[in-house]
């Protein structure tokens, strides 16, 4: 046993309890504080939280006391929520009426008696809104607000189809970073990831500069990162204030690689979440998001593969079918054609046999006909000709006698005519022939007065000289 005077811890605790009860027991205080680390057990209607006060300039925490609200206090909180429409939760600035309690095991606690609903917005939220407003106003080229959404350059990037190269920003002691890595590397699909870790403090607003420097280091690594993941394990709500920092929000919004946040908190979204490409609630969820993203790609590929298998099988079967049908068509048709041609040949054969027979018969009969005509005709022609000749002969005989008779008659006529016209006869009838220069003449112009002329008359020649020549118009001989 030590000689030093001592008491038991519980005795000290009881002394503290008595002292505090004496000092604060019967009084309550209206205090202004921020709520953090709030949790609520619905079935018991218990609120647990911390009340904090921060330096408005540096945001450093000046005071922190655990708080609780049971029974009446919890009812007042419910009323507060009903009146303000604001949930009693982290980051709200409240004016609460508290009594001070000390419990030997649970320590110092402030017990809420009442809450003033007029203090609806906490300073933290006001600051947060101010920071968001400043981000939008000062960086219009890569941050703008659309409805409740913030459109940033970062969240407009399209994620690569497959995420494999990952830069992780976490604290080197972070359980969250380990959760993230573990979930990724032990994924059930066997996906392989290349993870580069960038360690930096992820709590305390004064570490914001170092955090931004880490982001720049990721960029300067010039590796083909598919995404940058910011992880942070669970912890008290106040530890997340760094992620509401203006510089970090701006750097994330502007960052040229999609940023995925897995900042372990369930109750609020930080400005970094709002600026990032994708926000998830925890490091594990961030890893699951990446795995799901890759899984979706793999499923698309598998669907493609399946499609290719099915389509190629369809293609083969349809090609085999069309080949087979062409094959049978050609075989059958070729056979048909042959059969048809064979039939045609048989028919033509038959026809030619029959036709040639009938042609021969026809020719034979016409030959007989012609020959019979040839045989009969000449006889009759000859007969007719003979007849004609006989007739001609008989005509000749008849006409010959007649002809001679006629000829004899005309001869006799001419003889008597000639006899009558002979000069002897004419001279006997008193006509004379006059000759001039021993030439017979009938032209009186040959005879001139003084000419000697010979006159022949009935067997005598009389020589005379022309004494006179006159025109004579006697008509003695006009018969």
């Amino acid at each position: 046993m030590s000689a030093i005077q001592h008491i038991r811890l519980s005795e000290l605790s009881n002394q503290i309890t008595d002292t505090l009860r004496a000092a604060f027991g019967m009084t309550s205080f209206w205090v202004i504080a921020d709520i953090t680390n709030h949790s609520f057990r619905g079935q018991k209607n218990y609120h647990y939280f911390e009340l904090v006060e921060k330096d408005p300039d540096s945001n450093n925490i000046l005071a922190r006391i655990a708080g609780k609200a049971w029974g009446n206090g919890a009812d007042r909180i419910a009323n507060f929520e009903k009146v303000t429409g604001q949930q009693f939760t982290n980051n709200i600035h409240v004016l609460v009426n508290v009594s001070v309690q000390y419990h030997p095991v649970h320590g110092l606690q402030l017990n809420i008696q009442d809450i003033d609903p007029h203090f609806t917005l906490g300073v933290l939220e006001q600051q947060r809104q101010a920071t968001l407003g400043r981000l939008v106003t000062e960086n219009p080229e890569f941050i703008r607000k659309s409805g409740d959404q913030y459109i940033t350059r970062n969240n407009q990037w399209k994620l690569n189809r497959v995420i494999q190269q990952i830069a992780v920003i976490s604290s080197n002691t972070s359980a969250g970073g380990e959760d993230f890595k573990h979930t990724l590397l032990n994924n059930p699909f066997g996906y392989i990831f290349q993870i580069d870790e960038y360690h930096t403090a992820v709590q305390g607003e004064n570490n914001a500069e170092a955090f931004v420097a880490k982001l720049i280091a990721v960029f300067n690594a010039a590796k083909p990162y598919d995404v940058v993941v910011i992880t942070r394990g669970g912890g008290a709500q106040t530890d997340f204030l760094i992620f509401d920092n203006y510089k970090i929000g701006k750097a994330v919004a502007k960052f040229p690689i999609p940023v995925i946040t897995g900042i372990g908190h369930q109750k609020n979204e930080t400005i970094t979440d709002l600026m990032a490409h994708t926000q998830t609630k925890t490091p594990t969820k961030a890893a699951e998001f990446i795995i799901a993203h890759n899984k979706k790609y793999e499923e698309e590929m598998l669907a493609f593969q399946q499609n290719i298998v099915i389509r190629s099988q369809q293609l083969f079967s349809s090609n085999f079918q069309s080949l087979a049908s062409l094959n049978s068509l050609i075989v059958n048709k070729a056979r048909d054609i042959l059969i048809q041609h064979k039939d045609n040949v048989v028919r033509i054969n038959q026809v030619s046999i029959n036709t040639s027979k009938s042609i021969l018969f026809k020719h034979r009969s016409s030959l007989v006909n012609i020959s019979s005509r040839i045989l009969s005709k000449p006889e009759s022609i000859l007969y007719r000709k003979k007849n004609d000749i006989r007739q001609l002969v008989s005509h000749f005989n008849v006409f010959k006698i007649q002809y001679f008779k006629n000829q004899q008659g005309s001869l006799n006529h001419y003889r008597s005519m000639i006899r009558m016209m002979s000069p002897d006869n004419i001279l006997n009838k008193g006509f004379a022939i006059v000759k001039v220069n021993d030439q017979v003449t009938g032209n009186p112009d040959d005879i001139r007065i003084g000419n000697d002329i010979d006159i022949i008359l009935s067997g005598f020649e009389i020589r005379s000289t022309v004494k006179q020549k006159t025109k004579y118009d006697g008509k003695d001989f006009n018969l």
Partner: protein
Amino acid sequence: MEKTLTYESAYNELARIADEIENESVSVDVLAQKVKRASELITFCQTKLKSTEAEVNKIIAQMENAGPKQ
């Protein structure tokens, strides 16, 4: 068979012969020749199709056995 014969051209020629035979525009003089050519083409097409199918099946099997991507 020509070295440059492709499935596509063989099939087209086959279809043309089948057409001619179906329309009976093939004279008997060349019928045997056409049917012989058709049978060559069918053999060619079937061989080609079967070898391609085998090859594709092999590739598909490899695809399916490849498992999750690296």
